[in-house]
C-alpha cells in the first residue's frame, strides 16, 4: 500500500523543475556518513485486506469488556456509546482538521469546543472551562500547578482517596519543584479527613467520588481550605456522578478537573481519553491549555475563536502556564456529542441506573458475606472486603469474568479488598455471575 500519488512522469517533471538529477540529490545537505544505507528493516508492506485480517486477529486476542463480563472501573468506565457519537465524530471535517488556529475555516471545531466548555461548566457549576487536557491524571497535575502559581505557596494536601495513578502522575509533574505534597487520610466512612492546614498551603486536592467510590463531604473541607487561604481542587474520574451530585462550584470548589472518558469515549485500553478543567473566573489567566471564546466577524455575525492565547507556549514559551499544545480535541467532541444526546434527563436517569445497580450489587454481595470497606455512601463503584479473595478468584476460569480491581495492587495492606464497579452495561446475569464467583 502506498499513499504517495506521483507517477514516474510526474516525478521526472518535478525533478526538472527543481533542477535535480535524482530524488537523492535533494538530500545533499545531509552529510554522507549520516545517510542510511538500504531501506528500514521493517516487516514488508501489507495490503489493506491482509492488514485488516492481521489486526482483527490481534484485536481478537484481547478479552474485551464486550466479551467478558467486567466489573472493572477505577478511572476507566464501560458505558454505552450511542451510535450517533462515532458517526458524527468520524466525519472527516472534524477528524482531519488541525488545531483551529485559523478561525474562519475552523468554525465547526471552535463551536464544538465552545459547547464542550459550556457543558463542563454546567456539570461542575463553575464559571469557565478549558478546551480539554490529555487525561484525568495530567489534568489533576495541571490543577495543582495552577494552584501553586495562583497562590505562590508551596504546600499541597492530597487526599488518600486520589486515584493512585493520578498521584503518581502528580509526583512526576512536580518532582522538580520545591514543594511539599502531604497526604490526607480517609476516615472509616471513606471520606477525607481534613484538619489543620499549614499557612503555606496552596491547595487541598480531593477526588470526588473518590478512588474507593465514596462520596466526599466538601462543604466543611471547603471552609477549612479557604480559611487557610488555599484553593480547593477536586478531581473526578467518573463524571457521570456529577449528573446527580451537588456541583463542585456550589460547594466551594475553586478548580474542578478530571476525566471525561465516561461520556462517549471508548475504554480503548486507557486512551485516548480526555481531561477537563473548570475553575472560577478569577483564575482564567492561570488556566492551562486552549480556550475558545465567542466574538463576531467583521460583518458582526457571531463567530468563535481561540482566545487568551498569550498564556500558551507558542507565545509565552518558557513562561507559559503549561507546555501543552495538542490536546484531546476529538475526544472532547465525542463528549459534547454524547452529552447533547443524553441531555439533562437522559444523563440524570443514566446516573440513577448506575447508582441503583451498584446498590443492588452491593446488597447481593453483602448477603454472601462481602462487606463494603467503608461505611460512607458511594455512586457506581465501591471497595469491598472479600474474605479469602485469593482463594475465591483462583476458582475463576481465565477470562470468564473480570470481577473488579484487586486493591492490594496499590497497597499491600489492602489484601482481600476488591474495587467493584457496575454500569448500565452490566446485566442482571453478570451480577449473578459475580456473586457466584465471590461465594466461598
Amino acid at each position: 500500500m502506498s499513499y504517495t500519488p506521483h507517477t514516474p512522469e510526474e516525478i521526472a517533471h518535478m525533478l526538472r523543475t527543481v533542477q535535480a538529477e535524482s530524488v537523492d540529490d535533494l538530500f545533499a545537505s545531509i552529510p554522507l556518513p549520516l545517510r542510511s544505507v538500504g531501506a528500514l528493516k521493517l516487516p514488508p508492506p501489507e495490503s489493506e485486506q491482509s492488514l485488516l485480517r492481521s489486526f482483527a486477529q490481534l484485536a481478537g486476542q484481547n478479552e474485551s469488556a464486550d466479551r467478558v463480563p467486567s466489573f472493572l472501573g477505577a478511572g476507566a468506565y464501560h458505558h454505552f456509546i450511542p451510535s450517533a457519537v462515532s458517526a458524527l465524530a468520524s466525519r472527516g471535517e472534524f477528524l482531519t482538521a488541525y488545531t483551529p488556529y485559523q478561525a474562519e475555516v475552523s468554525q465547526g471545531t471552535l463551536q464544538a469546543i465552545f459547547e464542550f466548555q459550556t457543558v463542563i461548566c454546567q456539570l461542575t457549576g463553575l464559571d469557565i472551562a478549558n478546551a480539554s487536557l490529555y487525561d484525568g491524571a495530567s489534568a489533576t497535575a495541571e490543577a495543582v500547578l495552577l494552584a501553586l502559581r495562583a497562590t505562590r505557596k508551596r504546600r499541597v494536601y492530597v487526599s488518600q482517596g486520589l486515584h493512585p495513578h493520578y498521584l503518581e502522575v502528580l509526583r512526576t509533574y512536580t518532582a522538580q519543584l520545591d514543594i511539599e505534597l502531604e497526604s490526607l487520610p480517609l476516615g472509616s466512612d471513606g471520606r477525607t479527613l481534613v484538619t489543620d492546614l499549614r499557612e503555606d498551603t496552596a491547595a487541598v486536592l480531593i477526588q470526588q467520588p473518590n478512588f474507593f467510590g465514596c462520596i466526599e463531604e466538601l462543604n466543611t473541607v471547603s471552609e477549612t481550605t479557604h480559611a487557610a487561604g488555599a484553593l480547593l481542587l477536586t478531581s473526578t474520574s467518573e463524571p457521570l456522578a456529577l449528573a446527580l451530585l451537588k456541583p463542585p462550584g456550589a460547594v466551594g470548589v475553586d478548580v474542578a478537573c478530571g476525566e471525561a472518558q465516561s461520556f462517549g469515549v471508548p475504554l480503548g485500553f486507557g486512551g485516548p481519553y480526555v481531561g477537563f478543567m473548570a475553575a472560577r473566573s478569577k483564575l482564567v489567566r492561570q488556566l492551562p491549555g486552549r480556550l475558545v471564546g465567542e466574538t463576531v466577524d467583521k460583518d458582526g455575525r457571531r463567530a468563535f475563536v481561540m482566545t487568551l492565547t498569550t498564556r500558551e507556549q507558542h507565545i509565552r514559551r518558557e513562561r507559559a502556564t503549561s507546555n501543552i499544545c495538542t490536546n484531546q480535541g476529538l475526544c472532547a467532541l465525542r463528549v459534547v456529542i454524547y452529552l447533547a444526546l443524553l441531555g439533562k434527563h437522559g444523563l440524570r436517569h443514566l446516573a440513577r441506573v448506575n447508582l441503583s445497580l451498584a446498590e443492588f450489587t452491593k446488597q447481593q454481595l453483602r448477603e454472601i458475606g462481602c462487606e463494603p470497606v467503608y461505611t460512607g455512601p458511594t455512586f457506581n463503584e465501591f471497595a469491598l472486603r472479600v474474605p479469602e479473595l485469593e482463594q475465591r478468584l483462583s476458582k475463576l476460569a481465565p477470562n470468564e469474568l473480570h470481577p473488579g480491581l484487586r486493591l492490594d495492587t496499590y497497597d499491600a495492606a489492602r489484601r482481600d479488598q476488591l474495587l467493584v464497579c457496575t454500569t448500565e452495561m452490566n446485566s442482571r446475569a453478570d451480577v449473578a455471575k459475580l456473586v457466584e464467583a465471590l461465594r466461598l
Partner: protein
Amino acid sequence: MAAKKDYEIPEDCRYTQSDEWVRIDNDGARIGLTDYAQSELSDVVFVELPEVGSQIEAGEPFGVVESVKAVSDLIAPISGEVIAVHQALDEHPEWVNEDPYGRGWIVCIEPEDAEALDSLMSTEAYRKHVEERAAS
C-alpha cells in the same frame, strides 16, 4: 512603514529603554507605556497590575501587558512603593492604546529617590531611541 509614523513623546515625562514613561504629578510618580510601545504591541487586551503597597525595583518587572499576539513585561523605571494601580484597565485595556499618556496610565508610585528620574531618558533622547529601532 512604521518608521514614517510620528509618535507622541511628551516633554513632561522621562523614558526608559524598555518604553515606559514616568511623570511626577500631585499623587507621586505615574508610570505608563509610551505611544511607540502601544503601537508596536497593537491592541492591548490585558494589563497585569501589581498590588497596592508592594515595592517595585528599578529595572525589574512589575507587571505584564498583553496584546492578542504578544506579551511583554512592564519594567519599573524607578524604585518605590505602589500607591495606586489603574484598576479600570481591567475593563478598558484599550485605553493603553487610545491615550497612553493619559487615561492609559498603569501605576502610580511613591519614589524612593526623586533624583532617580534624572538617570532616565529625556524626550529628545527617547525620540532618538525610537527612531533607531524603527529604522532597523
